[in-house]
């Protein structure tokens, strides 16, 4: 990566460096703005990226205002109306009703908020654990790096969902424990990503230059190395949002995550499956909601990768 490129992906975490007056910061704002515009133009050209962005924005909007737009707010956390149980989709109940007469449309909409919260927590915790460990492993040359990387390897040596099931088995079922379990299996990916990125930039000329003028390790890591790791982290985080949502719904489906009547899509499907085939709408709609949400984050992630990190394209 050349010096000119290195000024590009610095959208976040550059705080401490702003007081440092160097030639690059004089021209950076203009260049950066132009750079963003160019990125947006590239992003906009791809239909699938735009579709992903649209789905994600719609999902965030629903998660944000869901409780105020649903027709039957009292059904969100569980209520019983046996007089209207298991009705097929109709004008009043768009997605039909479940076995105790709760409106499925309401619960799917409210479920968006649960899903967003789960996805953000898992991805956020994974980043908070994985990125610092990856930075440490990348800059240190001692047994510390070996320890971190070997533990990471062990975690990556088993399918994540199996380990998550094992951890929930030890902690006990529940939405909080499911989130803890998934965060615990999710961070190693970030360690690998950040560590390899650090290894590739830590001997670059601009890092060496900073070191030679006496910049501290702390400053080098946060001002020069971390900003260069930002784009792959952002891309991975977007992809992981979708995957984490899928994994959490899977645990909910298995009865290890959110417990009914909590409005979570996976848990809804796990009850709804007992009502197939006659009451198909019960499991159809929550599943579609999961599909579109995960699809949205994946497409957005693909689009971001093409713009931010074109070398990673497969």
């Amino acid at each position, binding site marked *: 990566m050349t010096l000119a490129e290195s000024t590009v992906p610095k959208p976040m975490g550059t705080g401490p460096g702003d007081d440092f007056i160097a030639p690059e910061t004089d021209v950076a704002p203009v260049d950066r703005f132009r750079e963003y515009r160019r990125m947006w133009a590239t992003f906009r050209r791809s239909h699938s990226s735009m579709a992903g962005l649209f789905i994600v924005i719609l999902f965030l909007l629903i998660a944000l205002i869901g409780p105020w737009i649903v027709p039957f707010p009292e059904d969100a956390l569980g209520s019983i109306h046996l007089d209207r149980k298991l009705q097929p989709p109709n004008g009043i109940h768009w997605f039909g009703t479940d076995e105790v007469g709760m409106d499925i449309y309401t619960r799917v909409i409210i479920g968006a908020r649960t899903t967003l919260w789960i996805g953000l927590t898992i991805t956020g915790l994974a980043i908070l654990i994985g990125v610092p460990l990856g930075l440490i492993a990348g800059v240190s040359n001692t047994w510390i790096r070996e320890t971190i990387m070997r533990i990471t390897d062990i975690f990556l040596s088993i399918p994540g969902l199996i380990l998550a099931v094992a951890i929930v088995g030890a902690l006990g079922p529940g939405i909080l424990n499911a989130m803890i379990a998934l965060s615990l299996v999710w961070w190693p990916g970030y360690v690998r990503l950040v560590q390899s990125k650090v290894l590739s930039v830590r001997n670059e000329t601009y890092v060496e230059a900073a070191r030679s003028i006496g910049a501290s390790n702390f400053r080098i890591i946060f001002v020069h190395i971390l900003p260069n790791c930002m784009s792959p982290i952002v891309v991975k985080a977007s992809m992981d949002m979708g995957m984490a949502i899928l994994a959490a719904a*899977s645990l909910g489906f298995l009865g290890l995550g959110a417990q009914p009547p909590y409005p979570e899509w996976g848990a809804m499907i796990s009850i709804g*499956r007992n009502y197939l085939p006659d009451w198909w709408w019960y499991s159809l709609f929550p599943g579609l909601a999961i599909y579109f949400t995960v699809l949205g984050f994946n497409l957005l992630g693909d689009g971001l990768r093409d713009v931010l990190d074109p070398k990673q394209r497969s």
Partner: protein
Amino acid sequence: MGQLIVRRLIFMIFMLIGLMAIVFAISNIAPGDPARLAAGPDATNEMVERLRVERGLDKPIVTRFAVYLSNLAAGDLGTSLHTRRAVVDDLARYFPATLELVLFSIAFAVLLGVPLGMAGAAFQNKIPDHSIRFLAVSGVALPMFWLGLMLQWYLSLELDLFPLGGRLGIMTPRPETVTGMLTVDSLLSGNFGTFQEAVWHLVLPSLALSLPALASIIRVNRAEMLETLNKDYILNARAQGIGPLRIVTAYALKNAILPTLAMIGLRFGWMLGGTVLVEGVFDYPGVGLYATKAAVSSDFDPIIAVTLVLGASFMLVNLLIDLTYALLDPRVRSQI
């Protein structure tokens, strides 16, 4: 080569011990009293204490881990609380079923994914390519448990094309157990009716399980094909008047297949994880269903044993993939 395999296998043992240590540590930080869970809700305090001593749960964690490892070396993985059998016997019964399911799914994903990826590259940016790419992006986003349910609903319950679940019909006689894989065992005993039925039971679960892998294989294969098709030697082949079909299958595929192989290794792990979901949907008696039942009832011995067995199979598959890689491509032989 032999030395390399031995070194990798020894390394694998250390990795597995590490994996055990992590699961052990996590389960001990966890709140809750394993002795009380094991004794059941009606147990008196005295019974709980007796069980605690009996199972060695009063000892410190390091001692217990050492005891676990020495039992493991002797082939004892403990007892399952929910099946009330030795975990080793349970695994011997369930693991072949899961392996059969995963192998079927891999076959499905490769046999469909490679041609579809090739077709996508050959028809780049035309309608077949767009639909294939749509399949590829949907494949990783579809919750496989939900897809399984929908397939079950439509193809078994509505159209009655496939069995609802399980491995064989209730009335079908079981073939003598040799490998534990019903398709193989029924063929070995020459019972083609049972073979057919076993395959029939595998179609829907493997379809659901293979979809994410299918999607990634399409993606990788398509991208690699596109890259290879732009190479000079393809241009040369074209200039020599070799037909497009032969160029794609004989010239380009050879180079595109290696990354696909790496993807298969990666996806194998995902599939092992996916069995937890798909086996639950199709009531397919494998380790995934076993692990879920154990996790729901906090049944510790089976959980840790399943982690061990699936971790080991994942590592073995990766070793096999690396070796195949080395066999197929002399360029990587020196690197591993």
